[in-house]
């Protein structure tokens, strides 16, 4: 492990005093959140990953209603590019009010699981399901093939995949999903004030690092320490890509619950669209190990995938059901968490933090530096 001299540097610039407040251990932990952006890795399960024609067609299909059976809406209706590829609605509004908050679609390349319940193990599978989900786009394989055949996209589609009429409708569905996936892979959040801070620490440029606001630094210290946030929100994407009980109620009404990861795994294990399945283009079936080896537990019930925190200030409301309106509410939720709501046989990580008002403000300030937005 590298050792620095003093981890705290005081910079005097006129009347302004700035410091790097982090300990050496905290600095080392902070370096683990980068570098950003990550280098692009093509998806071996998608033969048109990183293909310029597929990316362009995917972008066009994403915003066109041709992917819904009646032309009622497009992917962008819920994943609005102008709103960080989500909307401000509490829960997504498809053909009906859905059970969950719309996740943003940035930084999705190379994840192990997709969706709040992790019902997909590839981005193309995650792109496929909404097209045929009755409460969302509501196509079936045949109607999709027909719609694409009659659309203005047919020439571009056939330039990539060949004649559509010779393709089985299921192949058309998978090809369409892989086209969307090729586009979605390109959506990456920009570098932020936090990344500049992190990189300055890596260069040992404490003068530059000290420009990072002290309130955000204090928030980062809480994030790494007493807040226990880093246990789940780690790595450059600020997510461990696993599933946890965050103490958010998962009852939909008096008789129904959102099964979360439990339902996601049940779906996944019976799906034809997995990395180990025939629709993967990777002869080595890389990534299929996760489905093969994942452990199932009744404590999966009501757990949800850890969301990335990159760009988080742009994606309110929060949690799987959109029940918390802003970052302040999220921090207060964890600070005052009702541990009675947690699984009794689940992991023992969350407990009441009893944060002060200053500490809550510091944590919010830190989270805001993971986005390129400023508070109004």
């Amino acid at each position: 492990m590298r050792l620095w001299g003093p981890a705290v540097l005081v910079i005097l610039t006129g009347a302004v005093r700035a410091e790097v407040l982090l300990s050496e251990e905290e600095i080392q932990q902070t370096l683990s959140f980068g570098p950003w952006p990550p280098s692009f890795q093509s998806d071996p399960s998608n033969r048109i990953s990183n293909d310029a024609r597929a990316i362009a067609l995917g972008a066009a299909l994403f915003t066109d209603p041709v992917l819904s059976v009646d032309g009622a809406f497009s992917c962008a209706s819920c994943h609005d590019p102008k709103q960080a590829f989500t909307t401000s609605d509490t829960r997504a509004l498809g053909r009906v009010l859905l059970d969950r908050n719309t996740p943003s679609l940035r930084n999705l390349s190379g994840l192990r699981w997709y969706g709040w319940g992790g019902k997909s193990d590839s981005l193309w599978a995650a792109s496929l399901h909404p097209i045929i989900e009755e409460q969302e786009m509501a196509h079936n394989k045949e109607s999709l093939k027909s719609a694409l055949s009659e659309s203005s996209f047919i020439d571009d589609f056939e330039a990539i995949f060949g004649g559509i009429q010779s393709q089985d409708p299921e192949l058309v569905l998978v090809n369409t999903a892989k086209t969307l996936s090729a586009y979605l892979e390109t959506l990456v959040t920009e570098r932020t004030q936090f990344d500049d801070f992190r990189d300055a620490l890596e260069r040992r440029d404490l003068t530059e690092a000290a420009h990072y606001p002290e309130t955000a630094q204090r928030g980062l210290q809480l994030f790494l320490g007493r807040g226990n946030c880093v246990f789940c929100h780690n790595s450059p994407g600020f997510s461990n890509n696993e599933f946890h009980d965050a103490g958010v109620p998962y009852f939909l009404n008096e008789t129904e619950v959102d099964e979360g990861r439990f339902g996601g795994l049940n779906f996944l294990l019976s799906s034809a669209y997995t990395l180990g399945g025939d629709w993967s283009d990777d002869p080595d079936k890389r990534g299929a190990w996760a489905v093969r080896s994942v452990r199932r537990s009744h404590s999966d019930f009501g757990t949800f995938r850890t969301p990335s925190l990159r760009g988080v200030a742009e994606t309110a409301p929060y949690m799987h059901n959109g029940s918390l309106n802003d970052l302040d509410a999220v921090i207060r939720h964890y600070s005052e968490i009702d541990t009675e709501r947690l699984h009794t046989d689940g992991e023992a990580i969350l407990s009441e933090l009893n944060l002060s008002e200053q500490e809550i403000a510091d944590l919010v300030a830190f989270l805001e530096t993971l986005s390129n937005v400023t508070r109004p």
Partner: protein
Amino acid sequence: MIRCIFWLLASSGAAVACEAAGERMNSETQDAPAVYVAVDDIPLSQPFSILVTVCNEAAVNEMRVDAIMPAHKHGLNYTPKVTALGDGNFRVDEMLFHMPGLWVLQVDVDFRGRSLSYTSSIALK
């Protein structure tokens, strides 16, 4: 992302003549054959592999590998895949530590009806 790892194990007993790489694992059983575990840098929240070597003349019938985070009261989310390489060497794939902190690696080895348990602690940053 690569994290520093610290092996916090304490080993007792005399060294056994055995070509083994890595650190010796702990066992509460007196005179337990030596078991070594070798691991390179562990990436947080990403799969990794380890090599386990059993220094014993008796053949190993079965090996099971697991890990827990005692402070958090949870274990691995994926079942590790154990492959015998011969000469007491085992490759363990599909290990994944999804949180930073102290993990306890657990290896159970069956020798002709005798099952022995070994542990090592790993602090993942």
